[in-house]
């Protein structure tokens, strides 16, 4: 059984205090009888170290923006305030002050929780209605609008290519050109026929 704090069974959420371990890494939960493998990592048993601020020497040391009695040890990488060991928070690889984290000023673009895939919308609008082709008279300009609007917007974090936007743009332009030709031919053809008839 791995040493460390009590874990919960992932299925029944009960503490794995009463567990039958087959060996070091596998066992069975005695509550729900779920067989499991468990792979522990050093973070399971590592103890977090509490930050201890250093006392500031007057007229010699810079002091923390939030605690005048504490010596400044770090500069906030977002707003530039001096911070003591208590106020410097390690956040996404940066040392930040609590107020910057609270206002999310320092949140990089890569920390987004969700993103809209304009390429998905555009390709659905440009490709889907081709089955009912008269719909493309309306959907093609909208798809082209999505392509233009989404071109400079943040893309997917994991597949950031513009391939879908390009395909949707080409399809939409072809459809619009097709409609313009059709309308032109319709108008021009009618005039010509009229002249011949006269």
């Amino acid at each position, binding site marked *: 059984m*791995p*040493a*460390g704090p009590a*874990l*919960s069974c*992932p*299925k029944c959420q009960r503490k794995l205090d009463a567990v039958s371990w087959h060996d070091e890494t596998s066992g069975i939960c005695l509550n729900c009888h*779920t*067989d*499991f*493998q*468990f*792979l*522990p*990592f*050093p*973070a*399971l*048993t*590592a*103890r977090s170290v509490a930050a201890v601020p250093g006392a500031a020497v007057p007229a010699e040391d810079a002091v923390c923006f939030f605690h005048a009695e504490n010596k400044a040890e770090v500069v906030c990488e977002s707003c530039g305030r001096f911070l003591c060991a208590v106020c410097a928070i390690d956040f996404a*690889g940066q040392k930040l002050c609590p107020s910057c984290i609270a206002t999310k000023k320092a949140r990089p673009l*890569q*920390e*987004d*929780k*969700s*993103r*809209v*895939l304009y390429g*998905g*919308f555009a390709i*659905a609008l440009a490709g889907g209605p081709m089955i009912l082709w008269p719909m493309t008279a309306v959907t093609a300009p909208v798809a082209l609008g999505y392509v233009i609007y989404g071109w400079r917007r943040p*893309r*997917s*974090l*994991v597949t*950031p*290519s513009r391939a879908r936007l390009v395909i949707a743009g080409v399809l939409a332009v072809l459809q619009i050109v097709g409609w313009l030709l059709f309308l032109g031919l319709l108008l021009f053809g009618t005039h010509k026929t009229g002249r011949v008839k006269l």
Partner: protein
Amino acid sequence: MAQRLYTRLTPTRHLLGGFASLWLGPDHLLQVHSTGYTESYSRIYLREIKGIFVTSSDRKHYITLVWALIGLAVLFIVMLSSKSMLASAITAAVFAVPIVWNHLLGPGCRFYIVTGVQTAPVEAVVRWPRAQKFLARIQPVIEAAQADLAPVAPPPAEPAAAPPPPLSQPAVD
């Protein structure tokens, strides 16, 4: 061209309402749920991963059962409508393909990553062989990220408390 921050760890798995996949970032794992129109992300930082649970599931048996039932129903209809053995054989073969494929994918499993605040299910990993491959890939990465976290030895067991002295019987005059 935008620089790719993430490396794919698992193939995209189709869910009922979208897709799930797992990616490796510079210092974290990124779980992606996509609908095709939006993507939502959840990050699990490598330094915060306390452990990984893998439990078995009956996924393989359920999928086999569903395909077999559908296949038998279609086969029954084909046999009623056509007396041809060839048509029945082709129908059986068509439905045998997903059943064999499901068998080749291996037994089902559920994969969880334990951190200090949550036990996050990984929806992109649902088969044991893939789970083993995935573990073999991320275990060294997580251990490297936690290299400076020295494991703390469990506190020594307290010595057994001395049994209380027997109660002295009050003297009876």
